[in-house]
């Protein structure tokens, strides 16, 4: 007797309240029907074994699915996840840039700042990733349970049934033209590190000397006021860089348009670099004196200046060319 009641309880507690009593009564009478008149505990066990696992029986009674996301929604769910995760990661990195253009770095060395920003970037990507995963999964679990349509066919991204027309919307991306997501993340992280270092150059970049078992910041290399005076140019470069990264993410592959945009971006960065480096007050007096004491650079000054510009131009041309070359691949 005891066993029967326990069994029925095990089934009904998994069912919605309103059906419990009726199903319990029916199960009770069914089990009694199956038992002989004078039954033993062994008989009861045999009957219950025939009815099977209470969990399975209960799931048979329930209309709600026993899975979080079923075959109808699974593919849309995975596609959306793959689409949204990189976008969310990019947004979190852009937020990191914003934070560091206006933020105060405090007393840190360059290495510390770079490591801190890389750490923050990765942590940001992971935490937004978890957020996206959680909310999207929740959304689809709810959809799965509220969808009352009898249609069991899997859905496409537009939440409609598949038709041959859908094939036309599939972008045909060749492996050689594809832009890896990691490249986009890397360039955004690079921009945020650049912004942080640029606007805190007086604290970060300069001459360090080893004294008392540690590095001491002797003198900054750059005049922060000079650097700061170029802020509109720098802002333009940062915003263009961010737009370029978003554009790369959306297009997903190298196209002529993208290669052109990339070339313009590279060109503007180089022009900005040349303008800033040509400012005679860029370096602090202390720095120049310090360097002059170490090496006799005065006669080399213009050679170094032109050398640096030449190297920069070379890389600009190379990067722009790479974009066009990949865009031309068929």
């Amino acid at each position, binding site marked *: 007797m005891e066993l029967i009641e326990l069994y029925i309880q095990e089934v009904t507690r998994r069912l919605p309240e309103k059906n419990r009593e009726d199903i319990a009564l029916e199960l009770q*009478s069914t089990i009694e029907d*199956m038992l002989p008149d004078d039954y033993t505990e062994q008989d009861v066990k045999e009957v219950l074994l025939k009815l099977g696992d209470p969990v399975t029986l209960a799931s048979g*009674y329930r209309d709600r699915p026993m899975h979080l996301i079923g075959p109808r929604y699974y593919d849309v769910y995975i596609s959306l996840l793959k689409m949204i995760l990189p976008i969310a990661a990019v947004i979190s990195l852009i937020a990191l840039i914003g934070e560091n253009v206006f933020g105060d770095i405090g007393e840190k060395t360059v290495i510390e700042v770079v490591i801190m920003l890389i750490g923050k970037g990765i942590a940001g990507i992971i935490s937004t990733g978890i957020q996206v995963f959680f909310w999207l999964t929740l959304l689809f679990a709810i959809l799965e349970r509220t969808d009352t349509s009898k249609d069991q066919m899997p859905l496409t991204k537009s939440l409609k049934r598949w038709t041959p027309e859908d094939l036309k919307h599939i972008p045909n991306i060749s492996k050689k033209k594809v832009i890896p997501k990691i490249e986009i993340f890397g360039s955004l992280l690079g921009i945020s590190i650049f912004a942080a270092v640029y606007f805190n150059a007086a604290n970060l970049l300069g001459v360090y000397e080893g004294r008392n078992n540690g590095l001491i910041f002797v003198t900054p290399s750059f005049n922060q006021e000079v650097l700061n005076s170029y802020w509109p140019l720098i802002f333009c470069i940062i915003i263009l860089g961010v737009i370029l990264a978003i554009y790369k993410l959306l297009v997903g592959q190298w196209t002529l348009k993208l290669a052109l945009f990339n070339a313009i971006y590279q060109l503007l960065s180089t022009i900005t670099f040349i303008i800033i480096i040509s400012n005679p007050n860029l370096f602090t007096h202390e720095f120049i004196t310090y360097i002059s004491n170490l090496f006799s650079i005065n006669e080399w000054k213009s050679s170094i200046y032109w050398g640096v510009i030449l190297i920069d131009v070379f890389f600009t041309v190379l990067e722009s060319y790479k974009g066009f070359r990949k865009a031309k691949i068929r």
Partner: protein
Amino acid sequence: MSTLLNSLTTELRRGTLTLAVLSQLKKPQYGYSLVQRLEKSGITIDQSTLYPLLRRLEKQELVTSSWDTTESRPRKYYILSDYGNKIFIQLKKEWEKTSQELYILLKGEEDDGTD
């Protein structure tokens, strides 16, 4: 029997279960009497499938149910509704057609083998 064959057989039979149950509900039946009737015709049915199936058929308005409390133990009786009867007749036709087609198909395969 291998487990694969087992699961394939179960799958093959699953679809016919509704038809088998509907066919026995022209007169009112309660759960266990239905199991016995089906077993007498050689159809073994997983009981954990049958009882929920009856409920589902009721929800789909193919059968109606009523409690009989006049006997020593209360029993829930199920009987085909008018709508259920219509569906049953159509489903029966479908089955006859399918089994006929499959019969010819399998027969043809046998003949090919003997050639």
